[in-house]
């Protein structure tokens, strides 16, 4: 791929930077999804619609109700947490009580995803709903062309990563979460209330997905199908990152973002999503424990 007037190094730097931006988004998605997945071992499909809901909430508050952005984002936090906790309380927990096989929860989560995605279509139509502000003024940093939004994405990504690390390693709640990730039965034995831990995990995980939702909504508007590719990216980031290693999902996400964007140099842009998928397959076949993962427990289905 050659562009006249632009050297290979400049091209590489530009695509690498773009990869960092996208990778930061994937990292945020992976962190939020990974927290929920490794703690509860439920493939929370509905995370995709919690993400989309967050975008729509900001849209409704800022564009339809004419409120300042921070209010919209705060509302998105509340709604996301509520949705996540509702999934746990009304759907997953009863299934846990009944000792339902994990596949039952997965299919139910899939159902939740389909229901909410289509409710969004009915409520907001399939057209993207953009936010009125834009941070699109291009700016140049050396050889790289970018926008404020893209820089902000990377910064928010870093901040979120630090927040997650801080939560997991500096708070009591986070330590409880790590205990549950490691061994739920043992955690229960030492007195951790699993029900409360799960509820909190869904709350925190759902809240963590809001920044990514906001950034994407700023960029492209909220649309009903925004949850699907986000969920897939989150899952791949988590699995590539490693079994049981929640922070590692960030690295998985970064890797995906970089690979996708650097891959464009060789392959057409429409095959981008294939790259991430192939990375996943490669990892799962060669190193199923992921980059940073622990033992692969043969996950029962």
């Amino acid at each position, binding site marked *: 791929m050659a562009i006249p007037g632009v050297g290979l190094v400049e091209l590489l730097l530009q695509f690498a930077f773009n990869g960092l931006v996208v990778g930061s988004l994937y990292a945020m998605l992976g962190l939020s999804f990974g927290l929920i997945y490794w703690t509860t071992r439920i493939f929370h499909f509905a995370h995709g619609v919690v993400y989309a809901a967050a975008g729509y909430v900001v849209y409704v508050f800022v564009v339809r109700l004419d409120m300042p952005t921070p209010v919209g984002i705060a509302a998105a936090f509340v709604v996301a947490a509520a949705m996540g906790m509702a999934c746990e309380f009304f759907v997953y927990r009863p299934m846990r009580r009944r000792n339902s096989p994990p596949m039952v929860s997965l299919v139910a989560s899939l159902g939740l995803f389909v229901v909410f995605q289509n409710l969004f279509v009915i409520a907001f139509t399939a057209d993207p709903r953009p936010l009125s502000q834009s941070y699109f003024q291009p700016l140049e940093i050396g050889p790289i062309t970018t926008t404020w939004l893209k820089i902000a994405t990377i910064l928010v990504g870093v901040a979120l990563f630090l927040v997650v690390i801080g939560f997991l390693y500096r708070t009591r709640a986070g330590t409880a979460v790590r205990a549950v990730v490691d061994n739920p039965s043992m955690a229960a034995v030492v007195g951790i209330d699993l029900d409360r831990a799960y509820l909190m995990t869904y709350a925190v995980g759902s809240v963590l997905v809001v920044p990514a939702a906001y950034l994407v909504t700023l960029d492209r508007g909220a649309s009903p199908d925004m949850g699907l590719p986000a969920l897939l990216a989150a899952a791949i980031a988590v699995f590539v990152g490693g079994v049981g290693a929640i922070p590692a999902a960030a690295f998985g996400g970064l890797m995906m973002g970089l690979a996708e964007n650097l891959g464009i140099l060789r392959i057409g842009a429409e095959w981008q999503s294939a790259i991430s998928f192939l990375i996943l397959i490669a990892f*799962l076949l060669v190193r199923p424990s992921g980059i940073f993962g622990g033992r692969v427990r043969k996950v029962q289905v």
Partner: protein
Amino acid sequence: MDYVVFLATIVGIYVILATSYNLLFGYAGLLSIAHAVFYGVGAYACSLALLRLGVSFPFALIAAMVVSAAVAALLAVPSLRLTGDYLVVASFGFQLIVYSVLLNWKAVTRGPMGLPGIPKPDLFGLRISSSIELLIFVYAVTAICGLVVWRLSRSGFGRVLKALREDEVAAMACGKNVTAYKVTAFVVAGALAGAAGALYASTISFIDPQSFTLNESFFILTTVIVGGAGSFWGGVVGAIVLWVVPESLRFLDLPQTVAGPLRQVAYGALLIGFMMFRPQGIIGEVKQ
């Protein structure tokens, strides 16, 4: 009346889809949300054979089944190492990628413009012309596919698939070649779905990638869940219920922009409802 015949024909096609998916998901416990891939690939293979190569329908049907089976074997490879959630994600990605191929490989598939003018089936010189004849033909194929799944499910093959679903390690310990069974399950399910795709292409006479999206895979999953995973008639019942009931809602006269998504909401709600209150579906599995 014509509409009823058409609906019945579509139901027949979906019975094939549901029973083939049941083999994979209900019996073998392999949750893939990529069944629409085999369906779509079969439809495209058949259409291209009919339109570009000018072969007669039986050959196009076989071509569709072979191509779908090959694609299914591709997906089977990750399934050997991956369990549960990983397989779901892999199939998820597989579905999105194949959809992308159908959409972007314009040279072959004409992308979003689709393939129009697909002829009705012709059998050794006799071309099917009326919708009743088509219905009978489709049902004949459906019956054959159903018979295949029926025999497989009743045989040792079906029992081993269920054993794989319950406890793969135990099955291995009993000396069963897990790889062979999994790949076979995928290949058979894929081939049958490909046949359904061929029938669909010929019935509707126009196909485009929109008919073979993730939503379609969800729908097939829903038919099996509702009807009853793991029991042969579950697939049949599910396909019938999930087509007949929403079609009767047509008479509610909702605007199209609402009716479509509302239908999907209903499917999703069915999935949740059944998982919460009757995971075994309408028919439920016969425990031996």
